[in-house]
């Protein structure tokens, strides 16, 4: 184990996979000479050269298409979106080519591509650069969607994504690049896609959250513990395929669930999780599933409005109190 940042963990995963498999290459804006807008590809150009670390023009649809074509003929591209909001420009390539090529070719073509970059709200990135982009992708059959919350997950899941024979959408976060954590140095440390993690064990309520919201839920859990409310936190890690079994097992234990997501709630991950829980654990529920979501509005630039739009610790605490029927300071 070594302690490293989330950014370093991603960098290590890329380096290890590029060493392991010479079909792996990185393509995107500023990934080479500039070493990445967020320095995730630091040192890779020097180590692997310009054939495998490819700088591109500002042309998301174009270089994503290049990546898909390369994947179809046997390479394993890692496409970097400077921020995932820019993937909107490549949406047709991702949704209509990457996701469907295996199906439409009758299995003749695999598209082992990883499209990665930061998404979600950060610090005053405003309306166009703060979106929770996962919602645009996990709806599409054929795409896998990963949201890694910790440095260890960043490494283990990115390696699994690169080794996967299908297109994987891998969305990081600007706010997490500098967090530190223990990361296994074993080059064969891989976290299979589709496995949730219980981040905190508890008895009274299951809070399902990922990325920054998972850390906010942790803070809420600490505060709720003082009032005797025991919160279990489950991080799905992979949104598609979803590890429903781990989530349901937790809900069957605690009998209540709160889903937190940074994006606007309508038809979001919270809606999906709420539906899964209600369909499959109905008789175990002691309260309706609650969603804590972003306000349905574009992200404001102003710091105070940005805070108001994004789910807060206080709103998570309120939701937990509602589903545990614990009002005021009274413990359940």
């Amino acid at each position: 184990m070594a302690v490293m940042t989330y950014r370093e963990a991603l960098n290590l995963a890329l380096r290890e996979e590029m060493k392991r498999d010479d079909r792996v290459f990185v393509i995107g804006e500023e990934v080479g000479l500039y070493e990445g807008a967020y320095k995730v590809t630091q040192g890779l150009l020097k180590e692997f050269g310009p054939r495998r670390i490819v700088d591109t023009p500002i042309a998301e649809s174009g270089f994503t298409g290049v990546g898909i074509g390369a994947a179809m003929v046997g390479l394993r591209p890692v496409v970097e979106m400077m921020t995932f909001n820019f993937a909107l420009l490549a949406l047709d390539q991702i949704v209509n080519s990457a996701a469907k090529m295996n199906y439409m070719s009758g299995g003749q073509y695999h598209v082992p591509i990883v499209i990665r970059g930061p998404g979600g709200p950060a610090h005053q990135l405003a309306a166009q650069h703060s979106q929770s982009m996962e919602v645009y992708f996990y709806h599409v059959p054929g795409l896998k969607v990963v949201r890694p919350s910790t440095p260890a997950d960043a490494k283990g899941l990115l390696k699994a994504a690169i080794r996967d024979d299908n297109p994987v959408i891998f969305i990081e976060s600007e706010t997490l690049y500098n967090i530190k954590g223990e990361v296994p140095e074993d080059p064969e440390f891989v976290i299979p896609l589709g496995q949730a993690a219980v981040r905190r064990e508890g008895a009274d309520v299951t809070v399902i959250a990922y990325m920054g919201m998972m850390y906010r839920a942790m803070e809420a859990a600490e505060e709720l513990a003082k009032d005797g409310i025991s919160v279990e936190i489950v991080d799905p890690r992979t949104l598609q395929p979803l590890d429903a079994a781990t989530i349901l097992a937790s809900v069957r234990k605690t009998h209540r669930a709160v889903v937190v997501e940074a994006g606007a709630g309508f038809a979001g991950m919270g809606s999906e999780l709420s539906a899964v829980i209600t369909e499959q654990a109905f008789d175990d529920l002691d309260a309706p599933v609650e969603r804590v979501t972003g306000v349905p509005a574009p992200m404001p630039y102003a710091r105070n409005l940005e805070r108001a739009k994004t789910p807060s610790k206080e709103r998570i605490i309120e939701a937990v109190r509602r589903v545990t029927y614990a009002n005021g300071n009274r413990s359940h």
Partner: protein
Amino acid sequence: MAVSKVVMPKLSEQMETGKIIKWLKNEGDRIQSGDILAEVETDKADVEMEAFGSGVLRKILVPAGSTAPVGTLIGVIAEPADDIAAVVSQAGGGAPEAAAAPAAPAPAAAPAGAGATEMASRPAAVPPQPRREDPAARTPAPAAAPTAPARPVAPALAPVQPVAAPSDGGGRIKASPLARKIAAQSGVDLRLVQGSGPGGRVVRRDVEAASAGGARPAVAMPAAAAGAEFEDRPLSQMRALIAKRMPLSKAPVPHFYVSSEVAMDRAWTLREQLNALEGQPKISVNDFVIRACAVALLDHPGVNASFQGESIRVFHRAHIGIAVALEEGLITPVLRDAHAKSLAQIAVEARDLAERARARKLRAQEMTGATFSISNLGMFDVTEFSAIINPPEGAILAVGAVRKVPVVGEDGVGVGRRMMLTISCDHRAMDGAMGARFLQDVKRLLEEPLRLLI
């Protein structure tokens, strides 16, 4: 005609799932209340599952060999004309609304009781006891009948719930799905539970509180206005179960009664002497009666017996149920192997059982498996009474107060102590003379009480 749901019963506190060993009835068979529907394998023993409702076994939802969680709908009993589609389609769903449920109250649940002044029943008619001494038993169940929940909540008998007809109307009960599931498993009647959730929703803690301490009266219950002619009090779980169980004994079991007066002078004197001994437990008159019955039962196995339909099961050990009155009903803890215990042992155990019965602290196995029961109303200065048999037991002894009465002796009239005993017997298993001979022996043992010490 009501549709009855057959659900996987909770046969022990730990039980979470049960396996259907085999169905003893097929789809289409006509079912009488009390019929054995299936054999269920639990973590501890194999148990026969009895039907509460009558009708036709319309649907088997969990086939033999399959395992289902407690509370799962496993079958449906209804008349051929009844529409069961709605019930079947909600298989695995929550418990039904019971807003205007027809006849029966909550599912089998609280410790079964007898009439207000008589014996309580054991929580269940079927489970372990029948197999306990059966060498062919599939599972060598431990001697202490294991299958029954610990709290005085024992739905081992026929977990069949009446389903209110859809047209019944009435107020819908707001309850969380979990609360409904727990209520169905523990036999709590949601109508009697006051919900503490938003809008009065009944949630888990409400059901658990009701299950632990008897249902809180619903807020909706109209308070008795000053000067009102009457008030309707909701049934406690225990009262509801007693009301349901007792007709199941009194009606189908043909009772006969035999009474005898016992001279208690010597027993009284002996008891005073024993109780004067330092370091010895205090012994009650009832302890003498328990000991006398236990000894006599071994000599009269025909009375220590249970009618089984095709046979009569005769017990070789005397497990005596002792009725204990509670605030809202009564309960019958079982003093096991009373024939092999001394008066002092019986005194200590009986007091412990009674105290824990009043505190609702009995363990499951302490509430099942009696072969004979005793109900004593002497403390209420009752001269004599007769009790209702607690099936599947074959007899019960009703004990009156020890009274001082004028007695004609050789030298004139003196003062004697007398006590009335009345035994209620199941005429299907025994006859008047058998009951009389047993009573005669009990009388002899009490009148020559030194026999109880050897």
